[in-house]
């Protein structure tokens, strides 16, 4: 308990951040020049933080494992970014965005952080537009909004289906500007392998140059981990192939507590697995649920083609179970309902692990309105279908094309097959109000921290949080720490702590090569993924989690006895990179299961089979579990739980219902 101080400022909720900004210690410009900051990761959080800090005068070094900072996986976000601008005059406000985010997160996030997030959301849009991000506009030249994620207001800003790409490239351009000006040193194709703590403070990192294989020591007065989420612990996810937990996990092993590791978001609309060869899953934007109807056959084990199944024989299970929200229930609810049907034997497709997302009704509906619009009287059935298809193509053309590209099926004629997939991790390194972890000088931003999303993230909120942390939070909060560091001269990387950390990293690499086993890294990763998906995925039980922990421990032993890492260490070696990451994923997987086992309630993306209502809905236990579970690594795969109680002062806690 005593180890966690969230450092939430005093005062009324609306005043906390304003007061903080006015009273936080500042660093004078001359001193900033001699303060060095390391940023690990170049996604929205990393790029925006690095450029902002460099503009302020700090000396910044940025690391990313990809060949360019522009590749970070923020780029893949499709839908949009929320901001409480109220441009649509539909009653939006900072409070409403705050409220929706807390409620959407199933009351497992920190009020003060979320309120701050909501209040800087508007500035993000301003900043992005000023830096050249081409967000969608109306004919009058004003920014366009759409509704998203089942909220009642239109507050989502977007750039077609490539919002993440446009925002990331905007942040990237700001970062590259600072690189060009000499204020940021960019280290691409570098992977962080350890953090270096000196006298209880984080003072740098060990990184491997992925091309030469050389281990490097880098000093920083502060280190910012902006390394994203750990969804790839499931092997199959919508994350990029290289997305990993290594930076966060190494920090965890050096003293940073890990918050709510079991909180994982499973996105309901992804293209299902097509076979053993599957390497990753592709998301189909949530916006499709605005027009598509989800169904499975009523008949158990029905093997007929979709078009042969009549209306009466179809079970629109979301509309049946949740008449008020229908197909638009939140992500966690939709995902569990799909799993329930498939597990019960009603799934479709070759694997039987999929449900239909059908646009037939939408095509018919749009066909009629389009015929009226075009003034076509008594249109034929074919004409109606054609009109409808045109409208659907205009709205979702690129998504339909992507679906056809991947599956080889035409979604205008056949319903899409979809299934839930791991998408985002709400858990991450525990941070205080300053975004500092439990290690002084070590920060975590964006998806890498345990964040503002509680137990479930709302759509279009991830981009918002990454940029909020990088553009508008860390530039202030880092001053609180660095203002006390101005007298600290850059520490030589010959310091024994650097030497020891590099030695440690080298030993792990040597150990991996020394095994000379028989199985590839992917072999272990796939097995880990299967354990996690089956037992720590959409539904979790005490029995399953206990089994999973035992299986993961056995897998860990096997990995360290039988993995085969080809090639050499002093070379470009992607297999070695993967091996290191999978080794960390295995350890993280165990902690996730431990966390899930501890939390015997159901909340957000975390569904404990033991904790559900009579109708099979998630049952939260606020009196027992209204806390952040922050895990301390005591070495030797032992973890100690610390609880940060969550106090809700501005919001009244209520059970979510979408009936």
């Amino acid at each position: 308990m005593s180890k966690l101080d969230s450092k939430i400022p005093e005062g009324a909720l609306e005043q906390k951040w304003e007061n903080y900004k006015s009273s936080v210690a500042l660093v004078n410009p001359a001193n900033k020049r001699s303060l060095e900051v390391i940023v690990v990761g170049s996604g929205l959080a990393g790029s925006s933080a690095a450029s902002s800090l460099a503009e302020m005068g700090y000396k910044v070094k940025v690391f990313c494992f990809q060949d360019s900072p522009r590749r970070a996986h923020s780029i893949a976000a499709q839908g949009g970014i929320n901001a409480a601008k109220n441009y649509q005059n539909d009653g939006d406000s900072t409070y409403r965005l705050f409220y929706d985010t807390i409620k959407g997160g199933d009351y497992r996030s920190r009020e003060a952080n979320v309120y701050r997030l909501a209040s800087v959301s508007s500035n993000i849009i301003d900043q992005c537009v000023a830096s050249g991000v081409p967000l969608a506009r109306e004919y009058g030249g004003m920014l366009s909004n759409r509704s998203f994620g089942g909220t009642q207001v239109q507050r989502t800003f977007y750039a077609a289906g490539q919002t993440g790409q446009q925002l990331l490239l905007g942040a990237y351009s700001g970062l590259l500007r600072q690189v060009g000006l000499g204020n940021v040193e960019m280290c691409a194709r570098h992977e962080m392998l350890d953090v270096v703590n000196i006298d209880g403070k984080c003072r740098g990192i060990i990184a491997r140059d992925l091309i030469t294989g050389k281990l490097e020591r880098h000093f920083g007065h502060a280190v910012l981990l902006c390394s994203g989420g750990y969804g790839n612990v499931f092997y199959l996810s919508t994350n990029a192939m290289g997305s990993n937990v290594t930076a966060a996990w190494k920090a965890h092993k050096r003293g940073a507590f890990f918050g709510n590791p079991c909180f994982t978001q499973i996105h309901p609309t992804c293209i299902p697995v097509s076979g053993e060869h599957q390497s990753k899953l592709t998301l189909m934007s949530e916006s499709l649920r605005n027009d598509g109807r989800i169904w499975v056959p009523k008949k158990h084990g029905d093997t007929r083609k979709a078009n042969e199944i009549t209306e009466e024989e179809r079970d629109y299970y979301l509309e049946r179970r949740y008449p008020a929200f229908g197909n638009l229930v939140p992500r966690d609810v939709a995902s569990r309902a799909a799993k329930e049907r498939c597990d019960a034997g009603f799934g479709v497709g070759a694997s039987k692990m999929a449900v239909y997302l059908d646009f037939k009704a939408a095509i018919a509906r749009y066909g009629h309105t389009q015929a009226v619009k075009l003034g076509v009287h008594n249109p034929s059935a074919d004409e109606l279908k054609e009109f409808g298809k045109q409208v659907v193509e205009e709205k979702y053309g690129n998504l339909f094309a992507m679906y056809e590209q991947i599956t080889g099926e035409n979604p205008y004629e056949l319903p899409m097959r979809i299934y839930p997939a791991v998408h985002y991790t709400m858990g991450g390194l525990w941070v205080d109000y300053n975004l500092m972890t439990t290690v002084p000088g070590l920060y975590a931003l964006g998806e890498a921290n345990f964040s503002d999303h509680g137990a479930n993230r709302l759509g279009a909120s991830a981009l918002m949080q990454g940029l909020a942390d990088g553009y508008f939070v860390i530039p202030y909060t880092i001053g609180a720490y660095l203002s006390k560091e101005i007298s600290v001269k850059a520490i030589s990387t010959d310091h024994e702590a650097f030497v020891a950390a590099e030695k440690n990293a080298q030993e792990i690499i040597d150990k991996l090569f020394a095994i000379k086993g028989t199985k590839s890294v992917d072999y272990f990763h796939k097995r880990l993924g299967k354990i996690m998906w089956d037992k720590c995925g959409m539904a979790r039980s005490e029995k399953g989690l206990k089994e999973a922990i035992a299986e993961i421990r056995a897998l860990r032993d096997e990995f360290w006895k039988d993995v085969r890492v080809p090639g050499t260490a002093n070379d470009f070696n992607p297999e070695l990179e993967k091996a290191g990451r999978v080794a960390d994923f295995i350890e993280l997987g165990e902690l996730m299961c431990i966390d899930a086992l501890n939390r015997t309630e159901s909340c957000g993306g975390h569904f404990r089979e033991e904790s559900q209502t009579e109708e099979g809905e998630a049952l939260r236990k606020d009196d027992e579990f209204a806390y952040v579970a922050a895990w301390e690594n005591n070495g030797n795969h032992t973890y100690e739980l610390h609880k940060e109680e969550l106090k809700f002062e501005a919001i009244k806690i209520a059970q979510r219902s979408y009936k």
Partner: protein
Amino acid sequence: MSGHMNLTLKIWRQKSDKEKGKLVTYPVQNISPDMSFLEMFDVLNEQLITKGDEPIAFDHDCREGICGMCSMYINGRPHGPKRGVTTCQLHMRSFKDGDTIVVEPWRAAAFPVIKDLTVDRSAFDRVIAKGGFISVNTGNAQDANNIPIPKTDADAAFEAAACIGCGACVATCKNSSAMLFVSAKVSQLALLPQGRVEATARVKNMVAQMDEEGFGNCSNTGACEVECPKGISLENIALMNREFFVANIK
């Protein structure tokens, strides 16, 4: 299984930039048409690792066609035979049983080979660092709706901004020219009122850096536009030419 294919792959293997490379033949069996091209490489690499050989190094990350990292030159075309897709979104159903597929890295002096099919595209970053941005510091921004932008301009800027920086344009250009990449960024920012402020310096500096990196010259064959997975238009190159001339007259 039905529809599964046996293929002959001829893949460029090269230890490093310093050493010479060559095509090496690998047969692969039982390839599902539902696999992506990169998943077929995963299968091959798994075989190589099990045999004790070194797997083929290739760049890839998001595998959903947006990060721009994957970069294979397949049977004489960047990202393979299908238009509008990246290598990761190319599926094996685009090939047939018995096919021979030649896979090479992007080839350009400005993109030196790191290993096998992996090349160094940091030249692109250096070009962007010279001007592919708007010089606005965090916190300086006015309200996003203060400057209305005509929808046509915003849409055109967006289309130029869709570039993923994969380098297929350079790879396919007979001159290894980077004009499409550079012009996409120049256009995007030139079309927006926010970007006009420093348009003159931007285009001069970016073109100068592009030349310094050793890319070739544009001869308007239009191959880049055809092969661009994001459909970046040649109009951007014309616009950059215009911007550049005007900038130099000023």
